[in-house]
């Protein structure tokens, strides 16, 4: 979490508030289809490569139809990459069983599973990011609550989201002050850190108290009311049905392989 993170949250919020056919879909539909997507992608065996490629259609289509800039999703994808990359890189090192490719080339099985991990990573992360970017946090929370998320947690998510900016600003001001006083030098000792972050904590708690009083004055009773129709419409059902059918199709038949065979004329 840094300055750039705070800005990223802000941009995400802007995209979440756009209007497009994808934004107009019910949050529940999008959340369920996205979860089904991720589960399908992750259910492939570990060496699978080509059968995964048709699944890129889902994030691509969602991004295209929602008007969220693809560069934004791509950048976040690259920022998040190191962890999967690090663990995945052990595969080529440890799994050295040769697998034969075209023209007699042999490659360690680990490279295939590494490639598979990278594909899975790109698919799952872009799907999750797109879900939020074309739904928006408040609509997503309301949708999840209707799907059975405990109310306390839904309210907690909304509160957390609302106050990230406020408290982060506070922390940024403190950090800037500290950098000025220490001429931009090294990080503070644990003792100084304790008092700095302790102050941040006390300020945050005071703010919570003020928020609570303000909310009581406005009639807060522990609920966050939302203005959203509870019914699913035609487009929602078509969206869910269409994509789920596609996932099943692409899971059962290797579409890429079939297309390749059709074009190269190789008979199985």
């Amino acid at each position, binding site marked *: 979490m840094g300055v750039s*993170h705070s800005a990223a949250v802000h941009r995400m919020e802007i995209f979440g508030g756009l209007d497009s056919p994808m934004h107009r879909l019910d949050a529940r539909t999008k959340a369920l289809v996205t979860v089904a997507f991720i589960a399908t992608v992750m*259910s492939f065996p570990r060496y699978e490569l080509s059968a995964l490629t048709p699944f890129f259609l889902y994030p691509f289509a969602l991004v295209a139809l929602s008007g969220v800039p693809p560069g934004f999703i791509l950048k976040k994808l690259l920022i998040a990459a190191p962890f999967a990359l690090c663990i995945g890189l052990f595969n080529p090192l440890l799994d050295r069983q040769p697998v034969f490719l075209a023209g007699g080339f042999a490659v360690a099985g680990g490279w295939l599973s590494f490639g598979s991990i990278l594909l899975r990573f790109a698919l799952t992360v872009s799907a999750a990011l797109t879900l939020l970017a074309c739904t928006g946090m408040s609509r997503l929370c309301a949708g999840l609550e209707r799907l059975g998320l405990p109310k306390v947690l839904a309210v907690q998510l909304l509160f957390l989201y609302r106050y990230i900016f406020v408290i982060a600003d506070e922390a940024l001001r403190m950090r800037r002050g500290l950098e000025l006083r220490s001429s931009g030098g090294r990080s503070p000792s644990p003792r100084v850190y304790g008092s700095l972050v302790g102050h941040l*904590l006390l300020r945050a708690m005071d703010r919570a108290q003020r928020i609570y009083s303000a909310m009581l004055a406005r009639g807060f009773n522990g609920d966050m009311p939302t203005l959203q129709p509870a019914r699913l419409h035609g487009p929602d059902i078509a969206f869910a049905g269409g994509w789920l059918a596609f996932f099943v199709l692409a899971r059962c038949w290797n579409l890429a392989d079939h297309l390749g065979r059709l074009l190269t004329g190789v008979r199985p």
Partner: protein
Amino acid sequence: MHMADALISPAVGGAMWAASAGLLGYCGRKVRLALDDRLVPMMGVLGAFIFAAQMINFSIPATGSSGHLGGGLILAILLGPEAAFLVIASVLTVQALFFADGGLLALGCNIWNLGFYPAFIAYPFIYRPLAGGGSNRKRAWIAAMVAAVVGLQLGAASVVLETTWSGISALPFATFLLLMQPIHLAIGVVEGLATTAVIAFVARARPEALEMSGGALAKSVSPRPVLTGLLLVTVLVGGVLSWFASTQPDGLEWSIAKVTGQGEVEAGAGLHEELAKIQEKTAFLPDYGFKTAAPEKATDSTGRVGRTVAGLVGGLLVLALAGLVGYGLSKRRRAV
């Protein structure tokens, strides 16, 4: 130690989702029963505080490096286990959604690894007895240090188990464990340092701020039905989903046997085999996935090479097609 979706199988992800969801439901009910509206904004703001506190680093004495607060333990100390678990879950959800720090399928694992151990193990069983009333600063310091280290060690071990069970990474169990535990020992010490530094300051500046955790959630909800339900759902989800997944059922069974030291899964083995047989029969392209690169298959017949080429060509083409469809859709959208 946020786990990514790319390393998790649906069976493991689903089972951990079920476990975390059950615990979240229990915590939610308990917090609601507390009937203390004050807790609602407090939890939200403290979640935001965890994000903000991670912007400020401190230098670790006697090393050249710096660290920052993780958050699980301090939340448990401030809010008590149930409310803290909810806050940790919300922080992890926001991280997953906004920063792709850990994925959606892995969210259940992450909530469990980073929330359950600090809130329900390290805080009640280590921090509270060791720290006593919190008046003795040295005791509180030691308590936070031990609790943070133990919480992170348990979490790291859990990451290793879940990764091994998923069978997507080729890292063997022991190697991964040897890799993770020492790293998280260091992270645990940093976490303990940061937690005590902040708690010690608050205890001096405003001791009453630390008293929220005690009384607010005194009313109890019996955990037994929740636990039973949890166990049932976990077994069910694990069993059903692994039918779809079973990338490496042997790995899973092997680790369970290794960890528990007994054949607890024996009862299920027959069913599992049956399901595996069904799966083999229903698989459309059984030898496509390069699963067995056994020597006799290495004699590359033209058919095999051809199929690989076909897969390669098809894969690239489909990727291009998907991109084209996306491009076309966005063009159409702009035209409208």
